[in-house]
């Protein structure tokens, strides 16, 4: 039997969580509704959940004139796929090595990896390293290599997973059977480590998909604009609008004519969210998994 007290608490929890759910979800609905609002209605009445007139103009515009948008979308997909694959492979190989208890120099390597979590050079030397030593500026590598190609935290999570879930006897048995280390990695570690690999791939994919900072730092001018990811493209539109608002030129028609209208902007934003919305159930499942595996520190 439920006590009265318990009932009141349940009611309060539901009311609170329904409000929270509304607050969390409605803003995304606003993006979608604005994208299908007729442009004049938007300009006159502003953003609204109940627009007077709807129109699919924004999506038609993207399909008809969206070379730049498609290009940016393609670049985001490319960067996400390549970056995530390299990230997961590189991290898992490093983690596997670190997870072996008898690895010569294990303490040194662990320290070498963990230290990157504690001490960080920050933006200035990182920027100078990538631009003056590795010349990634205005190349596709600028979006893939800096910062996101490996997350130390993920390496440590994988290491913990391997040492906890892969029996040492299995590795020893394979060794006695004469399997090479590469074979052991390919035939034992990869299949047995699949759950953690998938989790890490989703984490990494998400951070590539949402990243706009690498493009902001390393892509400049006309050359760089050609490599904009979808997030950089969205960011650029905002910067242009601000430039127009701040400059006294006002009707700088050249830039103005090229700017996507409000509904088109919202449509691009919505299109950029779609993959995350589609993958959401997966993402949620693996986020919970990742947390129970110890991603608290993330």
């Amino acid at each position, binding site marked *: 039997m439920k006590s009265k007290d318990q009932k009141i608490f349940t009611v309060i*929890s539901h009311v609170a969580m329904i409000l929270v759910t509304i607050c969390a979800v409605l803003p995304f609905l606003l993006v979608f509704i604005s994208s299908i609002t007729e442009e004049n209605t938007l300009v006159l009445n*502003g*953003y609204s959940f109940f627009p007077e007139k709807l129109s699919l103009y924004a999506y038609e515009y993207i399909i008809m004139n969206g070379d730049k948008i498609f290009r940016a979308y393609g670049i985001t997909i490319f960067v996400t796929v390549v970056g995530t694959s390299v990230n997961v492979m590189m991290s898992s190989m490093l983690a596997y*090595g670190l997870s072996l208890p008898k690895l010569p120099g294990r303490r040194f390597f662990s320290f070498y990896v963990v230290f990157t979590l504690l001490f960080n050079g920050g933006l*200035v030397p*990182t920027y100078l390293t990538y631009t003056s030593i590795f010349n990634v500026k205005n190349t596709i590598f600028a979006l893939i290599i800096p910062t996101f190609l*490996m997350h130390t935290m993920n390496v440590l999570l994988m290491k913990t997973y391997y040492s906890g879930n892969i029996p040492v006897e299995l590795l020893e048995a394979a060794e006695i059977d004469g399997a090479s280390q590469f074979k052991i990695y390919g035939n034992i570690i990869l299949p047995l480590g699949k759950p953690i690999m998938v989790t890490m791939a989703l984490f990494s994919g998400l951070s590539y998909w949402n990243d*706009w900072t690498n493009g902001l730092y390393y892509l400049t001018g006309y050359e760089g604009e050609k490599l904009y990811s979808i997030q950089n493209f*969205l960011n650029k539109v905002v910067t242009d609008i601000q430039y127009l608002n701040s400059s006294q030129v006002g009707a700088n028609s050249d830039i103005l004519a090229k700017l996507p209208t409000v509904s088109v902007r919202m449509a691009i934003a919505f299109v950029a969210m779609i993959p995350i919305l589609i993958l959401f159930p997966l993402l949620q499942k693996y986020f*919970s998994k990742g947390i129970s595996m110890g991603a608290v520190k993330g």
Partner: protein
Amino acid sequence: MRAKRKTGKFRWRKWIPIFIMMAPGLIYLFINNYIPIFGLVIAFKKLDFQAGIWASPWVGLSNFTYLFKTPDAMVITRNTILYNLAFISINTCLSLAFAIFINDMKNKLCKKIYQSAVLLPYLMSIVIISYIVFALLSPDKGMINNSILEPLGKEPVSWYMEPGYWPLILIIVNAWKGVGYNCLVFIAGIAGIDPGYYEAAQLDGATKWQQIRFITLPCLKTTIITLTLLNVGRIFYSDFGLFYQVPMNSGALFDVTNTIDTYVYRSLLQLGNVGMASAAGFYQSLVGFTLIMICNFIVRKVDRDSALF
């Protein structure tokens, strides 16, 4: 003797493939993390782009003297620390409350829906979030001005020009975006509590509040402390996107939106003042490192497994 040497050699041969597999990761960390750490010396130099980092002339502490003479140094330190303190306390309380609410529900579907909803904003890019904030706050088209203030007969506010509102706005946006993740952490923590405790408490006639106060919170104590300490360790770092993108880089708001990270970015890439940027960056790295070490030291005492090392 001979046999021993042979096994020694054999062992090394065995490890070579492992080292080959570890190499790409180790090299990447060297490029992405270690070279920049050495590059921090730039804070004590005057960068000569022609000569490169190493050949640039030394200038001692003059970059730092300039930086700490400006009022900016004080403002960015204050903003970074105060915002982080606000974020840590508010996000922890909210996510803890939501986790307790969600966990208490019997209905599986409701649980799932609520859990999904709080996580959704966490997964979106800050650029899209800044679009949403702009849809709400835009001075002429924004929902707050048009659909809330106007019907109430109040004057519209030029949100992006009024610094007074921004501490609150940033705290709300950050909570909206970040609570979901912490909430999942606490839900995982609550799921680990032995249900027997609650059954016994109910038999003894404990109220719901008493159960939270004397079972849930004490059991989560370690998780809460660990999470808080790890966040406190990062108190000298800020979310660049939140402070740069969400206020739309608006100059009128710099006094309340400028943090160390946005300051370093603007000095380096918008104003081209490498000296100031590198001094501020060095300051952040050094103090940040000290704080992380202190907090990690305490975490080790509280919960050995949660410590970074």
